[in-house]
């Protein structure tokens, strides 16, 4: 029995693609080595961000925001989306200058969603922020959502819509299998499909023997504190500091910022995990306290890490494979894929259904990694 679409990887990207493909009436099977959302999806701070995006990703991020606003209703489950806005603070004149340059560059490309906020506004909106902060880059209609609730919402919606979910089923490779079909070699035997979508995250680069894509696996560390009195609604980043900070409705503060832990068993998607590096946790916390001094008194309850696939140029691989007809890549979101998941799911599903939409995915095509393509200057934005 050949399924219409087989999706390799049960993270948010895979589940979103599965759900949207079902809406087009396609038969869908998700194949996940561990359990859904085991890695990157559960290590996200949940930022739904178009602020400070790489230029090529801005159209996706802005379009994704529209989907997030209606996502709970579409899936029939709460995803915890809050339009809290996102802010990126500047601690000095150089930071503000960089923001002004950024806004000018965006204006040239016709984007106006990012705006400058003065020190005075900052004092009013974030009274607990450190006095030396000079202002901020702000997107008012950005927000955040609850990664675990979103994962659960998509998983339930997929099951309700009739997606076949095969967890604990490792995939060893994908090969052509005659006209218009692909064969997926899995731990539980071969699965045939008309289309295959590679949503394998940190393991996406190894899936196709003759289309290997170099990527690095990083164990990104997250920290959560015990609840403290409400002091911030938007998600906070800082120019020149690795920090992403958010306060949830329970009052807990979630601190991320792409500080990497120690990778263990990287090659095995089930056993792979990241052990924490106390020194780097200290650095991550120092960034948080530099901007919100009162957090020094907060209590850390838990720290964890999730494995992310990091691409050399910081951009995902999205679009048809160059070597295997019927295979679509959708991985390598380099620690900023959470916000894009609902949109990527729609784009890939629409492409599977109608064949259209390749143009919108062109900036992220796997072709950019052809042997002659010059190594892109790494313009990676913060998580």
């Amino acid at each position, binding site marked *: 029995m050949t399924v219409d679409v087989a999706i390799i990887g049960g993270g948010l990207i895979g589940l979103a693609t599965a759900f949207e493909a079902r809406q087009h009436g396609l038969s869908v099977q998700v194949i996940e080595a561990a359990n859904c959302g085991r890695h990157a999806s559960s290590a996200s701070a949940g930022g739904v961000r178009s602020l400070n995006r790489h230029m090529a990703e801005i159209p996706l991020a802005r379009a994704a925001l529209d989907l997030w606003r209606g996502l709970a209703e579409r899936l029939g489950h709460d995803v915890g989306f809050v339009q809290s806005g996102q802010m990126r603070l500047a601690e000095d004149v150089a930071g503000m200058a960089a923001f002004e340059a950024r806004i000018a560059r965006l204006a040239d490309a016709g984007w106006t969603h990012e705006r400058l906020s003065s020190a005075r506004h900052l004092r009013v909106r974030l009274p607990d922020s450190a006095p030396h902060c000079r202002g901020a880059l702000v997107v008012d209609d950005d927000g955040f959502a609850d990664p675990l609730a979103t994962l659960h919402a998509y998983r339930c919606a997929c099951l309700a819509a009739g997606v076949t979910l095969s967890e604990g089923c490792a995939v060893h490779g994908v090969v052509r299998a005659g006209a218009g079909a692909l064969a997926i070699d899995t731990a539980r035997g071969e699965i045939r499909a008309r289309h295959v979508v590679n949503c394998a995250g940190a393991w996406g680069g190894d899936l196709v023997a003759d289309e290997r894509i170099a990527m690095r696996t990083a164990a990104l560390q997250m920290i959560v504190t015990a609840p403290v009195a409400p002091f911030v609604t938007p998600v906070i980043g800082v120019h020149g500091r690795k920090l992403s900070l958010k306060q949830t409705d329970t009052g807990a503060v979630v601190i991320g910022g792409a500080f990497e832990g*120690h990778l*263990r068993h990287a090659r095995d998607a089930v056993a792979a995990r990241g052990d*924490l590096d*106390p020194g780097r946790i200290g650095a991550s916390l120092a960034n948080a306290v530099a901007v919100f001094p009162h957090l020094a008194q907060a209590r850390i309850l838990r720290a964890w890490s999730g494995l992310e696939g990091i691409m050399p140029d910081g951009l995902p691989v999205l679009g048809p494979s160059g070597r295997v007809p019927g295979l679509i890549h959708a991985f390598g979101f380099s620690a900023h894929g959470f916000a894009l998941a609902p949109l990527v799911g729609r784009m890939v599903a629409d492409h599977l259904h109608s064949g259209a939409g390749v143009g919108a995915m062109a900036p992220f095509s796997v072709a950019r990694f052809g042997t002659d393509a010059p190594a892109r200057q790494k313009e990676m934005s913060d998580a």
Partner: protein
Amino acid sequence: MSKVVDLCVIGAGPAGLAAAARAAEGGLHVLLLDEQSAAGGQVWRNAGTALAGGLMPTTQAEKVYHGAGAALQRLAASGVDHRAGATLVDIAQPETGPETKSAPEAAPGPEAMVEITWRAPFGAEAPRVRQTAARAVIAATGAQERPVIFPGAELPGVMGVGAIQTAYKQSGLVPDGEGVVLAGHGPLLLLTLAQIRAAGGRVAAVLDLGPPGAMAAAARALPRALIGDPALMAQGVGLMLRRALSGVPVHRGVTGLRAHGTHRTGSIEAVSFTSAGRARRLPARLLGVHDGVIPNAQVSRLLSLRHVWDAGQGAFVPVRDADGAVAPGIWIVGDGAGIGGAGIAAVDGEQAALAVLARTGRARTRGAASGPQARRAAFRRGAFPARADGRACHR
């Protein structure tokens, strides 16, 4: 001063004390971290004060703290750097070989370091988190009471029977006045009942949560289960328990336990339950509950080790090799590896220390490996009863 310690022991109960002292006597440089305020763990809590007559009559102290005095003197003489009040924060397993997607993971070499992150004792100057590299780690973090889940369990006025024991050993406190009810089963409940009555306190009722016959079995098991030296205790305690139970209403086969009260007041108002088919409600101020003890598995879970469910203990235990090793450079000993009581814990600790000494080529002939091994087997064969206190039936 060396940049690295040879051995870091976590926990200063019977197992940790034996492991640290044996390793130091073998010439190792040992750091002993224990979050409690003094060495001895739970069974030998506050042993120093008690044995000096500061808490209870010394005759009673010698029974309750059998073996503690010797273990504390041995620690003092061994040169172990003991940090009371130091809390373990994290253990990072040794760096495996260079981790690249293409090169398979190389096993860590003998010199691979285990990185211990810990918090200095209360009152130390911030930042209190410290890091120490150790060639080996022995975790001896002991047991905890199994939490009993019932409506009202979180109310002030409800606490573990083990906690009532701890209040007695730490500060000589005994439940006072009306409405003291003990609910549960197992030896600890009976020992606490006896201590309350010996100190002139009254117990309003005992609710037996165990299956039929558990109370009698618990009485027989008490001497060995809780107090180190079985021979010394056998007769005296049995008699004490029969007297202690006299005159105390015991409700058998209790189900549907519920505590009633508000969070504002420092005690509960009543307990309700069903016994022999009849619904009962008793006024109560303090409810002590007990459903056995289980390993404190935080360290073994932190290390992502494999565990297996031990149906007899009703808890997971980490999978270990013969010496108690669970990973390269890491051992888990004592009740944290499976409930065995103070006697086995000390042997277990000694055994792991000898394995660490052997690994660093410093195994001394004195107390060679066969010694503790033989003692351990003997102890297991005869001294410790099969689990006698039964289990509350599963839903």
